[in-house]
Each structure stands twice: as C-alpha cells, then as structure tokens.
C-alpha cells in the first residue's frame, strides 16, 4: 500500500518556533495554482487574513505553510480565505496517520443506521402481523360473507403501503441506483419481486372488473409483499449484528492503545494525550499502567504483560536498555522510557495494519464464487422471467397468471447472492482476528490458504527449536574442589564479554551462587580468561588453557568432559589455585515448548525437518532430543533457500520457519514463510505469517487456525452454492410436475433471510475455535 506524501491536515499541528505567542502552524495543500503569480496571490490573501501571522506558499509542492493564532482563526477559516482567492484546498478525506485513529464518527453512524434498520423492521413486522390474518379471511366463508371484498382489499392496500414505502423503500432506491450503473444486487431482486406482487395486487384492487372480464379472480398478494419485506429486514438486522462481531478482534486491538502518557517536560511530570507525544520524550510508567507507546527503558525494571501483542501469557522481565511496546501492561515495577516510535510506526499499529490488510485480501478459493456472483443477479432475473413464461404457457388457464406470478416472485426472492459474497471474507476476517489474539499475524488470505495445504515444516534450528543463545547445561565439580568454585568462576566471567561467559554468569545467578570480587582480569586470546578471586588465581577456558598451565585433569573430570563432548556440547575447564576444579558443558538449549510443538505437528500428519549450520553431530543430538527424523546439517546461510527448493522438488508443500535476516530468502522461497519472534522487519516482509511469540507453539496455532478457517470457508461456499442451486429450481416449480410442490414466496423470503445469516454464524463459530 502506498502512503501518500501529502501532509495530513488531521495530524496535530506542530507547535511554532515562536516561544511566546500561542501560535500554531498548519500546512494546506493548495490546488489550482498554475504560475508563480498565483502562489504570490494565495500568499497575500492568507497573510492579510486576520489571525494569520505568517504565510508562505510553495508553488512546486503546492503547499501553504501558515502560522496562525488559533484563538482568532482556525483551519476552516484559512481554507475559506484560500477559496475566496479563487483556489482550492485539498483535504485528503482519510487521515494517512495512524490506523489507530479512532473512528467514533463512523461507529456512531453505524449505530444510527442499525437503529433505523430496526425501526423499519419493527414497522414491517407489526403491519405484516395484521395483514396476514386479514388476507386469510377467505378461509372462514361465514366471516367472508359479511365483508365486502373490495373494501377489504383497500384496507390491505392501506396497511401495505407503509411497509413498502417506509420499510422497503431502501430496496427500491438501491435497485434504481444500481440500474443506473447497470449493476444489480440483492436489492434488485427484492424490489422486482415485491414490486411485481404489489403492482398486480394494486391493479386487482383498483380495477377488479378488468380481471373479471378476462375470467380471472382479482386476487391480491399484499400479505406476500409485506411478509417478504419483513423477513428480509429481519435477515438484515441479524446480518448486521453478526457482521459487527466479525471485526470485533481488530476493534479490540485498536482499543488497546493507551489514551494518555505521563511525560517529563521541563523537569515536571505532566499527563498528556498520547497524540501529543513526541519522539525522544521521557515517559514514566507506574505499576498497573499501560505503556503509552514504543520505546527503550532508561531506568527501572519491571515485569510486563505483553500477551495482547504476542499471545504469550507469562509476563516478561525488562530492565534498562530493553524495548517496551505501546499497549502492553506494566505489572510490578515502575520505570522510565524514551519514546522511539509513535503512531503508525508502533508495534500495535503495525499489527493492526497487517490484520487489516489481511482482511482486505482475497483467498484464491474465492475465485469461483466471485465469478458466479458477478453474473448472478442478472441470470436470476432471466431465470425468473423464463419461469413466468413457462408457467403462463403450461398451467391451466384459470390459474396460469397467478401461478406464473407467484413462482416468478419466489425465484427472485429465494436467490441469495449474499451468501456467496459473505462465505469467504467473513471467515477470513474472523480467522485473522483470532490469529492476532493469539500472536499469529497472517499476512493475507493466500497465506492462510497455503498454511492449510502445508505437509512439511522446515525448521531453522538456532533461535527456533533452540533459544539461540548458549546456556550452561552441566556443571561437574571435581571431588576435591572447594564449595564456592562456582562463585569464584562467576566472578571471573562477570568481567568477560564472551557469550559463553554470559551463560556461566546466568547459570551461577540462577543457582544462587555468592557474588565475589575478581581482580587482575586477563583474557587469554582464543583460550579463555583468568583473574584472582579471594586471593586465589582462577582460570577458565578450553583444554589448551589448562594444558599451557601444566594442569592435568583427574580421571572423574576427564570422564565427564568426554561425555559432554560426545553430546556435542562445548566444554569449559576450570582451575582454582593451580588445581583442576570443574568442567562445564555449554550448549544452545532446546526451548521448553519445542518438543511438544513438534510432536503436535507430527500428529497432524506434517513431517518436520530441521536445518542448521552446525555440524552433523550437534544436529543429530538436537534432532534426537526433539524427535525429528530428518535434518540437514552444515547448511550455509546462502544455501537455506536451496534446501527449501530441494524439499519442494520432492513434491512437498513446505512451510519454512525462521527468524533472522539471513532466513528471508528461504522464507520467500517456501510455499509459506513463518517468521518467528517479534522478528526483524525484513523477515516480516518475506513471511506469510509472523509469530509474535518466540516459540514453535505459534506454528501449531497457525496451522490449526488455517485448517479451521479453510474448513469454515469450504462449508460456507458449499452451503451457498447448494442453497442457490437447489433453491432456485424449487422456487421455479421444477418439483411441481412430480410432487405437486410449489414454494410460497413467503417461505422463499424466510429461506433467503436465514441463508446469509447462517453463513455469517458459521464464520463466527471460528471465534470459539480451539487453536
């Protein structure tokens, strides 16, 4: 999607540079300036306007920058001044700003339209309930004898008119508007059907003798007209209610945004609306508060609930230097952060945009339905006309006109293009919304459809199956080692910047080892490091480091080291005071959730294949741990896409799961790319699905969700096609020669009203789906 370069007038005006006067600056897009003198003219016109301090007009960019005093003039006033000078101000209708900008006005209008729809439905129902029994008086001959038929008809006419003119007006207006554009919709069918029934009844009421002279009974169909309109409106009311719920997920996402932020301005804490935040602002967040926007923590530490963005239910610990995201909830501590992203750039806005885009995309499966609905209505009108002609020609002479009319109306009314049109998009809206709730961002409907077809998942090992960072898995102290060996070791490693050292420190902290001080730290290039802790020299590093210091391992440590190496772990050797003290096994550990997720995928009939840059031994070990049978080892980053191709060449539909930038070509090559972790932007662009949670459970969720959504779509399409292909012939009276069945137009209206509602309801069932 392209974002226009036009500056948005809806954006808050930037404060002027003047420190004293309360002026604001606005940028107007001027249209109609053809020459330099025009721009001068506009500039003068603006400058002379009261309240304007300064105006500059740029002919090339067609923009006027106006500094004005808001107390004296507003944007509309400036616009008027430009228009008075004979030029136009172009106001982009939709602010190109954040998708989170509230659409209160739109919601209000919708609420109004819904209330009006309900009123129209109410009127139609009340009148139809009166009209129905009155039309059936002929069922009681004794009653009928006392009522004059013509009078009754006029009474019915009077009751039906409001139904037609008030409740059903929209159908006729819309049908007429459509005809002017040579398009036809459901409204066209309803207008034609009810219009035909009404006009015939009107003629029979006003000029019954004309009918009698032809040997016809002047029958009226006011009940049909009123009931059809009431039923269709009922369908619309239900449909409108259900439709609001299909977009509930995205509404909920948008509603997550914080309204205010507590910033530090001029050394003071002030609460301001989030729209007024600027990049670089320092924002304070107290326990229980929402984070206003994206930023980096400057001071403090806390646990944050990020489940609204990632679907991860456990709070995440954050401290100085960590990124925080708008709309997440601060749980325990207070902290201060610097604003790095605002409005449309924030994580929340990106998620909303991604979901919105997905909801606007078209699923390939929908193509047939689209083709059918393009010609649907005109074809139904033609079928209805043919029905009329055939009944008129083949029915007994005294009933041929009424039978032809009733079946003509039934065909028009039962046809439901809506069910076809709603089948796919509603399911996709609910499915993608559900995904967003679970931290699974689906890029478009095509990705959803692909995910459904996937039969092979290729996992990049590092950062996907494993955490992507080394961790200490084994700590084996020598029999003779002092009890505080671990604390001494950690004291040395705290001074080091090596990633393995960081793993040792984390391990020591987790074990609750004491914090000791180290002095005289020295790094031994390519071998390890050493320092003096509590007066004793401590060495930690690889085997060479110990060998160089002429320290040999006792048998128990020797044995432990050999075992660790056999498990493809990196081994660290520790010596304290010239004596061997411990060996440690360090490895990139498998995430807790990986084993379960992989087993789940395999149970779904999906083959899971692993790919890694590590050597075959390490690859085999990890594959064994997580239960993967097939793997590729020693794959260079550049060859990852080739491995995807290799699997595709075997006739598989491959989903590639990866994280970093070097996975992007492989993600793009795969039938479906899943980017894991809050990920890099590059990976997000290349991926069909982005998993906000950094574990494999998201892959399971994504595939389960796509399967359920596609199943719903197929059910919907099947229902819509079957409904129409069965309903129309039955309404046309195809069964009559064999069974004597005819479909009353009123039943047709009920069926039609329920058909689109049932499609919607089926889509909404996805909201409750377990994924």
């Amino acid at each position, binding site marked *: 999607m392209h974002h226009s370069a036009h500056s948005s007038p809806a954006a808050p005006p930037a404060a002027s540079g003047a420190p004293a006067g309360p002026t604001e600056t606005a940028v107007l897009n001027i249209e109609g300036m053809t020459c330099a003198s025009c721009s001068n003219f506009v500039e003068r016109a603006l400058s002379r306007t009261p309240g304007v301090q300064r105006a500059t007009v740029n002919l090339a960019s*067609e923009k006027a920058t106006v500094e004005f005093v808001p107390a004296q003039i507003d944007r509309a006033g400036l616009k008027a001044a430009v228009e008075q000078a004979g030029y136009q101000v172009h106001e982009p209708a939709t602010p190109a700003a954040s998708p989170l900008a509230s659409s209160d006005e739109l919601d209000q209008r919708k609420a109004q339209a819904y209330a009006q729809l309900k009123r129209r439905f109410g009127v139609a129902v009340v009148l139809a309930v009166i009209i129905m029994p009155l039309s059936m008086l002929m069922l009681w001959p004794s009653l009928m004898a006392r009522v004059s038929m013509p009078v009754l008809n006029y009474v019915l006419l009077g009751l039906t008119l409001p139904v037609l003119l008030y409740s059903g007006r929209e159908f006729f207006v819309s049908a007429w*508007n459509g005809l002017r*554009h040579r398009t036809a919709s*459901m409204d066209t069918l309803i207008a034609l059907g009810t219009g035909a029934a009404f006009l015939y009844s009107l003629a029979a009421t006003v000029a019954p003798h004309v009918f009698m002279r032809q040997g016809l009974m002047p029958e009226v169909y006011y009940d049909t007209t009123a009931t059809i309109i009431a039923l269709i409106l009922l369908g619309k009311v239900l449909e409108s209610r259900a439709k609001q719920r299909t977009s509930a997920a995205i509404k909920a996402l948008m509603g997550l945004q914080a309204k205010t932020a507590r910033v530090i301005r001029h050394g003071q804490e002030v609460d301001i609306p989030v729209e007024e935040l600027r990049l670089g602002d320092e924002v304070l967040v107290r326990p229980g508060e929402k984070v206003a926007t994206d930023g980096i923590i400057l001071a403090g530490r806390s646990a944050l609930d990020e489940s609204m963005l990632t679907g991860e239910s456990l709070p995440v610990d954050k401290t100085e230097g960590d990124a925080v995201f708008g709309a997440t909830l601060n749980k325990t501590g207070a902290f201060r952060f610097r604003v790095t992203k605002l409005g449309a750039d924030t994580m929340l806005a990106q998620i909303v945009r991604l979901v919105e885009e997905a*909801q*606007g995309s078209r699923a390939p499966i929908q193509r047939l339905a*689209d083709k059918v609905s393009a010609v649907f209505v005109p074809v139904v009108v033609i079928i209805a006309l043919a029905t009329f002609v055939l009944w*008129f020609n083949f029915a007994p002479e005294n009933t041929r006109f009424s039978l032809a009319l009733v079946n003509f109306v039934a065909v028009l009314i039962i046809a439901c293009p809506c069910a076809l*049109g709603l089948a796919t998009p509603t399911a996709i809206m609910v499915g993608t919304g559900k995904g967003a709730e679970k931290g699974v961002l689906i890029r478009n409907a095509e990705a959803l459809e692909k995910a459904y077809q996937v039969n092979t998942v290729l996992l990049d090992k590092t950062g996907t199956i494993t955490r992507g960072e080394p961790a200490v898995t084994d700590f084996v102290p020598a029999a003779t080692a002092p009890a505080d060996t671990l604390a001494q070791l950690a004291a040395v490693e705290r001074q080091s910047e090596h990633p393995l050292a960081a793993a040792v420190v984390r391990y020591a902290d987790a074990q609750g080892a004491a914090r000791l001080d180290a002095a005289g730290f020295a790094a031994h290039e390519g071998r390890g490091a050493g320092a003096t802790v509590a007066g004793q020299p401590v060495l930690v590093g690889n085997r060479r480091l110990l060998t160089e210091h002429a320290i040999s391992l006792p048998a128990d440590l020797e044995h432990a080291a050999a075992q660790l190496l056999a498990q493809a772990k990196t081994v660290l050797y520790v010596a304290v005071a010239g004596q061997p003290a411990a060996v440690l096994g360090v490895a990139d550990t498998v995430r807790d959730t990986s084993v379960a997720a992989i087993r789940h995928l395999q149970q779904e009939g999906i083959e899971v294949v692993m790919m890694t840059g590590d050597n075959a031994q390490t690859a085999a070990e990890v594959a064994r741990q997580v239960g993967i049978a097939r793997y590729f080892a020693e794959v260079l980053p550049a060859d990852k896409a080739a491995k995807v191709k290799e699997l595709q060449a075997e006739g598989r539909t491959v989903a590639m799961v990866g994280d970093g930038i070097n996975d992007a070509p492989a993600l793009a090559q795969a039938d479906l790319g899943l980017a894991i972790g809050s990920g890099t932007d590059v990976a997000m662009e290349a991926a069909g699905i982005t998993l906000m949670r950094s574990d494999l459970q998201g892959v399971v969720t994504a595939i389960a969700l796509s399967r359920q959504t596609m199943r719903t779509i197929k059910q919907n399409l099947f229902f819509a096609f079957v409904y129409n292909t069965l309903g129309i012939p039955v309404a046309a009276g195809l069964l009559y020669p064999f069974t004597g069945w005819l479909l009353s137009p009123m039943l047709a209206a009920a069926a039609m009203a329920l058909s689109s509602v049932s499609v919607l309801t089926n889509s909404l069932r996805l909201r409750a789906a377990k994924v």
Partner: protein
Amino acid sequence: MDTAQLLVTLGGVALMGFVGWFFFLAPHQVAAAVSSSTGVQQVDITVKGGYSPDVIEVEKDKPVQLNFYRDEDNSCSEELLLPDFNLRRELPPFQTTAVELLPRQAGTYEFTCGMHMLRGKLVVK
C-alpha cells in the same frame, strides 16, 4: 397457444434479451485519471448503487488516489474491497474516502463492494 400466451412469451423473451444486454453487453463508463502537479493520479468516484465511473484507467508506477464519495446510506456499498492491493475500507455515507495505492504492474484489478455485487475495474497501463 392463445394470444395472451403468445404475447407473454414474446414479451418474456424480449425482456430476457434486454436484461442480458443491459447488464453484460452495454458499454461502461470509463474515466482516465487526472494527474495533479504533484504526480498523484486522482479520480473521483461516486458510489450510489454502483460506481461511476466504474472503469478507471491509470498509469503504472505513479501513485493513485481514488476518492470515493458514497452518496447513499444503503448498507450494500458500505465496504470497499480492492483485494489485489489488500484493501478493505469502510466508506462512511455522504463522505469522501480517499484510497491511495501505487500500482506496480500493468493489468486490470477489480474493486467491489463487500459482497461482490457492485463492481468496478482499475485498469493500470
């Protein structure tokens, strides 16, 4: 076959032919975009029971701004779909909604209402 049947048959067949011609064969209203001096190709489209114009010609690789003015509050036209550009927009009644996009490839892209009843084409040249 009596006279009435003959008349109904002839009338019916003629009407069917007319419906087919009216919806499928009659020419459409075509409009080419007007480029503003900023290089944005703009087209104003009125939404009222359909899109007029309903065939819009634009040049590729230049930003396009489609200004949809929805001149009704009939619920049929409340959504606008441009699936090839992943766009789904709500069009508020009696307001202009600008839809911006950048066509990179020549071709014909359909835009429709939420239920695919109203339709128009964006022809990128």
